[in-house]
């Protein structure tokens, strides 16, 4: 019974959505298609230059709305393939011409127009079918209940059943029940088919996708090289001013001690103590440096325990939940570790949090991490902030970062990195 009512609810929702989509498809898609065609053909007359971008922008909004519905209603993901506009367009008529040309050159625009055509025909039909599978059986109930009397003279065709008496009315009802059961199972699938059809038309071609991928890789590679170079510079500077300088001083001290050991043993002893202290300091500095390059716990235990160890060092209560069935590759682990570290530092320093929750788990080929605090919120991932640094670092691995931090808190930083565990 529970299964049935669950199915009934989801099928009815799908049917309602189908009905809605068919209306939208017929009305909006048709209107936009006509407007677009007229506007583009008016470019030669001049007026089109001004109307086209407006109309095409509306088309894009319409298509994006459909993408959103596809994702939320049937989990069909349709990529958004529009080329970005250059940041500064010239003002006035030249800018307008430029905009129009750019939009018309974008293959995505033409796919949009093709989709409008498909949506107002095949797309609408599919949507109507989705709705009909649930609505049509209702009619058979009404027919059997008495509406058949109206058709006594001339039979009403309920699919292939001519209804003109109580008996044929009941036959229609039987057919209706069969249809209803088909509908319970198929409505969702038909609605999904509608979105899949949209995807076939709207999704970019393979070479376009590859071009975008190359663009993204070039960008993240530049960033990765930059980050690596500045890291090396930092390490060099730390070694040069820290441990290296201390070792020089120690060597010098030892030389002096050698000379003093017989003349002034008391002074030599004092200097020996200094040398030992200096070596201890050099060790401490090296230890901190190593922690910044690759934390030892990460090497010894992997991401989960490294984050636990990190949490134990924080001055605020931190709860760490880890669900990892293995270890990710070392570079991914390292990037994830430093991302968590930065997020935790922010929580303690800027958000003045009192409790922090860290969650690490791996599902569907994604390492998902969330860092939530009860601080005062208001964190932004703008350029130059620590968060944008994390974003860049994760970008190298096609990872993404999202920050939700309303003023007054709480702040939630979520990260996703595609990777496999071993």
């Amino acid at each position, binding site marked *: 019974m529970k299964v049935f009512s669950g199915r009934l609810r989801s099928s009815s929702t799908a049917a309602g959505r189908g009905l809605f989509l068919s209306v939208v498809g017929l009305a909006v898609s048709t209107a936009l298609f006509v407007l677009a065609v007229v506007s583009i053909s008016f470019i030669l007359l001049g007026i089109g230059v001004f109307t086209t971008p407006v109309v095409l922008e509306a088309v894009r909004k319409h298509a994006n709305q459909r993408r959103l519905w596809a994702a939320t209603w049937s989990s069909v993901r349709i990529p958004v393939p529009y080329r970005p506009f250059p940041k500064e367009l010239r003002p006035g008529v030249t800018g307008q011409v430029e905009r129009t040309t750019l939009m018309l050159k974008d293959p995505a625009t033409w796919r949009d127009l093709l989709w409008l055509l498909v949506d107002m025909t095949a797309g609408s039909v599919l949507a109507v079918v989705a709705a009909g599978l649930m609505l049509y059986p209702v009619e058979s109930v009404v027919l059997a209940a008495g509406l058949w009397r109206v058709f006594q003279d001339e039979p009403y065709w309920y699919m292939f059943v001519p209804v003109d008496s109580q008996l044929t009315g009941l036959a229609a009802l039987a057919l209706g029940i069969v249809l209803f059961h088909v509908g319970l199972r198929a409505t969702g699938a038909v609605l999904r088919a509608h979105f899949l059809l949209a995807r076939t038309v709207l999704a970019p071609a393979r070479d376009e996708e590859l071009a975008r991928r190359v663009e993204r890789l070039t960008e993240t590679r530049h960033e990765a090289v930059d980050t690596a170079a500045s890291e090396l510079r930092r390490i060099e500077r730390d070694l040069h001013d820290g441990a290296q300088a201390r070792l020089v001083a120690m060597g010098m001290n030892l030389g002096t001690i050698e000379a003093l050991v017989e003349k002034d043993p008391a002074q030599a002893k004092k200097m020996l103590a200094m040398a*030992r202290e200096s*070596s*201890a300091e050099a*060790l*401490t500095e090296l*230890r901190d440096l*190593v*922690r910044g390059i690759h934390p*030892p*716990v990460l*090497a*010894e*235990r992997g991401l989960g*325990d490294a984050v*636990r*160890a990190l949490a*134990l*060092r*924080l*001055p*605020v*209560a931190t709860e760490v939940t880890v669900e990892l069935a293995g270890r990710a590759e070392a570079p991914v682990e390292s990037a994830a570790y430093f991302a968590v570290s930065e997020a935790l530092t922010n929580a303690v320093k800027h958000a003045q949090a009192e409790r922090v929750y860290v969650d690490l788990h791996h599902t569907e080929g994604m390492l998902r991490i969330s860092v939530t605090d009860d601080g005062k919120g208001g964190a932004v991932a703008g350029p130059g902030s620590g968060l944008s640094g994390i974003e860049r670092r994760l970008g190298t691995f096609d990872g993404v970062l999202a920050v939700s931090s309303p003023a007054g808190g709480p702040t939630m930083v979520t990260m996703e990195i595609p990777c496999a565990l071993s």
Partner: protein
Amino acid sequence: MRVVLAEDLFLLRDGLVRMLEAYGFEVVAAVETGPELTRALAELEPDVAVVDVRLPPSHTDEGLQCALAARRARPGLPVLVLSQHVEQLYARELLADGDGGVGYLLKDRVFDAEQFVDAVRRVAAGGTAMDPQVISQLLSRRSRDEPMGGLTPRERDVMELVAQGRSNAAIAAQLVITERAVAKHTSNIFGKLDLPPSDDDNRRVLAVLAYLDRG
């Protein structure tokens, strides 16, 4: 006293063997890898094991894991773990069985031979030797929100040394006070922190560490 030593870097291993022998220990085995350590601990039954956390072949925390496994097989087997870095996570795992005879020190501590050897002896006798850094990390986590049960600064100093596993005599020597004064401070500390009083050196260390770790 018979010692098994596990350290993969030749220079350090050599230095430690010399130091321990100079202080009258008998180093029955000085090994390089985890599997060798496991075998030595099982076959030689030493009085104490001095173990580097990171050992080949895996270069992960193999030394620590071998030591923990050996302690499971022989509860209370004295183990002093050395590392280039100290983590509370590891300290917790070492202390978890509550059997005592555990040490966890930074490698830097070998600079001071006397203190280091003292720590080895303490661990061998079933006591505890925690690195001052572990204790100060624990303290720094708590100091922000709690005034540590109203301890006076002197009592805090004493507590830090108690948590490191020092005996009353050693604490008295370090703080330049009498042993009786130390005893008074410790009984005050236990009273203020609401811990069960204990004369047994090791029990009181574990009690204080557990208290600090609770935060």
